[in-house]
């Protein structure tokens, strides 16, 4: 008992900020249990006394969990903030927020670029011409070659929008973890867990707080670590040829790819190329935007950007190469990373609630992923 009192006394000294609040919550719990014990003693109800003793062990269990949490938090902070991130955060929650915000800015730029390209391409694709004098004439869509592009661009917009939404949701979760997890949810959970009737809810709040505070930022940061490793591997000399274009395009996605102006009545251009037997067109293996700007000049069989089909094909080749640069950002960093972090959080909630004495089936939350 003396050891316990000593531990209780030194507990607030060992912590700072949220840890102090958690320490106060534990002291509150112990005080409440003491009141219950005294009532039991006063009324001669042995069951109440026994319950108070039993609950005290639960409080001790929570204290051990807290000590473990503080230790884990410190270790993870050291690991995650020592990595060469460009951010200036001193803890992993801040680092995760910086990573997510940076990633969201990139995705937003890509999304806006896609919108811009979509506007240009669809405008070209919609062009048609009519020549009609005294009810005699013809109409034609000389820019029909561009109409193959809006559909994949819609799909790309769909994916970019989804990534943007996913990152925004993650940012909101990390903001909540920064502002409320430890300062509010954890102490409240500790107090609620003191009583048998509210132990389930208390355990859930503790699990939610710890999962939000530790596992969500950890998932984001570890995924970013893997992403950086992948990028470094991609630029190394021994990397396979298939990987290099993806990596090389990464970071070059800020400028809008150019879309050539189409002439809606350019029938001679179309016919000329067909009659010349231009045959199959192979997109070049070029991967830089500078090359893509002149893509029409060296696409085999097009002979420059004189005709509409040359322009449409050049735009297709350019977008094909250009969108490869998005894939890594969209699919790995912006989509897979948050999914891993969310799965870690839901698994953490399940495990921690189980430890806290009331297992919660988090399949409903996992289904959001």
């Amino acid at each position, binding site marked *: 008992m003396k050891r316990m009192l000593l531990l209780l006394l030194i507990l607030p000294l060992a912590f700072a900020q949220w840890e102090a609040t958690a320490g106060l919550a534990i002291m509150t719990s112990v005080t409440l249990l003491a009141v219950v014990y005294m009532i039991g003693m006063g009324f001669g109800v042995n069951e109440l006394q026994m319950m108070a003793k039993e609950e005290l062990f639960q409080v001790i269990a929570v204290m051990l969990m807290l000590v473990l949490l503080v230790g884990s938090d410190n270790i993870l902070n050291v690991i995650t903030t020592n990595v060469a991130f460009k951010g200036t955060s001193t803890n992993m929650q801040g680092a995760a927020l910086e990573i997510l915000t940076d990633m969201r800015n990139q995705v937003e730029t890509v999304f806006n670029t896609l919108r811009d390209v979509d506007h240009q391409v669809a405008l070209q694709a*919609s062009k048609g011409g009519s*020549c009609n004098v005294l009810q005699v004439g013809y109409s034609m869509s000389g820019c029909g070659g561009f109409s193959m592009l809006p559909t994949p661009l819609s799909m790309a*917009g769909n994916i970019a*929008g989804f990534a943007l*939404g996913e990152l925004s949701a993650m940012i909101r979760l990390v903001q909540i973890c920064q502002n409320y997890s430890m300062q*509010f949810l954890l102490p409240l959970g500790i107090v609620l867990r003191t009583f048998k*009737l*509210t132990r389930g809810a208390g355990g859930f709040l503790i699990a939610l707080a710890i999962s939000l505070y530790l596992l969500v930022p950890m998932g984001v940061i570890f995924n970013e670590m893997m992403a950086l490793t992948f990028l470094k591997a991609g630029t190394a000399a021994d990397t396979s040829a298939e990987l290099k274009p993806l990596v090389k395009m990464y970071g070059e996605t800020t400028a809008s790819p150019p879309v050539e102006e189409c002439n809606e009545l350019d029938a001679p251009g179309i016919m000329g190329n067909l009659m010349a037997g231009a045959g199959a067109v192979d997109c070049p293996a070029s991967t830089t935007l500078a090359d893509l700007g002149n893509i029409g000049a060296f696409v085999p069989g097009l002979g420059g950007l004189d005709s509409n089909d040359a322009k449409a094909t050049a735009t297709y080749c350019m977008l094909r190469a250009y969108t490869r640069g998005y894939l890594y950002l969209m699919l790995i960093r912006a989509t897979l990373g948050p999914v891993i972090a969310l799965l870690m959080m839901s698994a953490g909630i399940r495990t921690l609630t189980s430890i806290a004495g009331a297992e919660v089936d988090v399949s409903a*939350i996992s289904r959001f992923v």
Partner: protein
Amino acid sequence: MAHQGRMGGLVPKAAVLLLLMCAVSSADTIMCNGKYNLFAGTILPLVAGATAVTIVLIAGSFMFGTATSNPKLTLWAKTEIVQLIISLAAISIIMLAVTTFCNLDMKEVADIFGLSGTHPSMNVYDAAKDYLNGAAQYSHNALRMVRYHLEGYTVLSYLNAFMCDFKLGRIGLGCLFGYSGNTEQPFGGYGADIAALNIFFNGMIMAHFTALNFLFILLFIYKGFVFLFLPLGIFLRSLPYMRPVGSALIAIALSFLTIYPFTLAVFNLMGDTLLDRATGYAPAGVNMDKYDESVFPDSANAGSQMGISIGGESVAKCAYFGNDKGVCIAAAVAADFAAAGLLGGLDSSFFDEVENPAGAIMFSAYAFIAAVFFPTAALLASLASVSYMARMMGEEIDLSRITQLV
């Protein structure tokens, strides 16, 4: 003798129970602020009635068992009287919790934990309702912003222009003797925007309905749940083979009347971040006054509709996305007629306060967290509590399947 000892131990328990029951007298309203007192006026008489019927049943069984010297019946009666006391204890705890929650000011809770921001002074039940009302409003605002963009983009993408040959400004001489010129869709390229926004439009409908669903569950708990579950729980717990059902009903009532509102009230204290309450239930920089719900921007004025319809592509865009529609339209008319081609030259500064598809997507993501993720977490906490409380009453109940309703 052992049995007498056990019954003797019940006397102090009953004393504690009475103390708890005394606290109920200060529970003055239906969930604190209603027009009539559901607990005192409806629930308590029903609970008392169910208790009386159960006592009569048990007493009758005891007397019949004594008269017929049937030890099974008398033993059953003695066991059931203990269970009845346990049920009443559970109900007294509910009432104690209701009283406490009615008197607990969440603003003071926020002050205790040193939470920054504005926190309205209200009790737990009102705070829970306030959170779900806020979540519904927040998700509706997100829905409104997404819908507005979708409508604008859909209308604009169907806009066709025919530019006659031999142009003199916007007028083309090529159409004087026939139909010669070029056709274009100046805003045909909103496919990527529409595809992205469609997902979030569907998501926001689900989020808004989910928030309303949770709100209805809360109101049902406030106004009808305990009315049925508590008296029925007491009665069923005393019937042979029906104890698990009775226990489940009491555990559900206890959890949903205490844990569910309390968890939501806790989330309400996080409303400044979760619901952007400080900026009018919309993220900073989003002005909801710019996104009205009329199908056409100026649906009341036929002349305006006609003017917008024939005014040209920039005028149409201004009608939906102009920061200041009057200024934008005036500039658009001048720019369109000055330019020989389409899209005469209004830059994004005329639209940037309203046209914000990326902002709409971000807003939707925030709304999903506020209206689906956290209320579901409150439901999960309540279900965890149901399992725990049912276990305390000696039953194993798994209600995790109910989350599939989410």
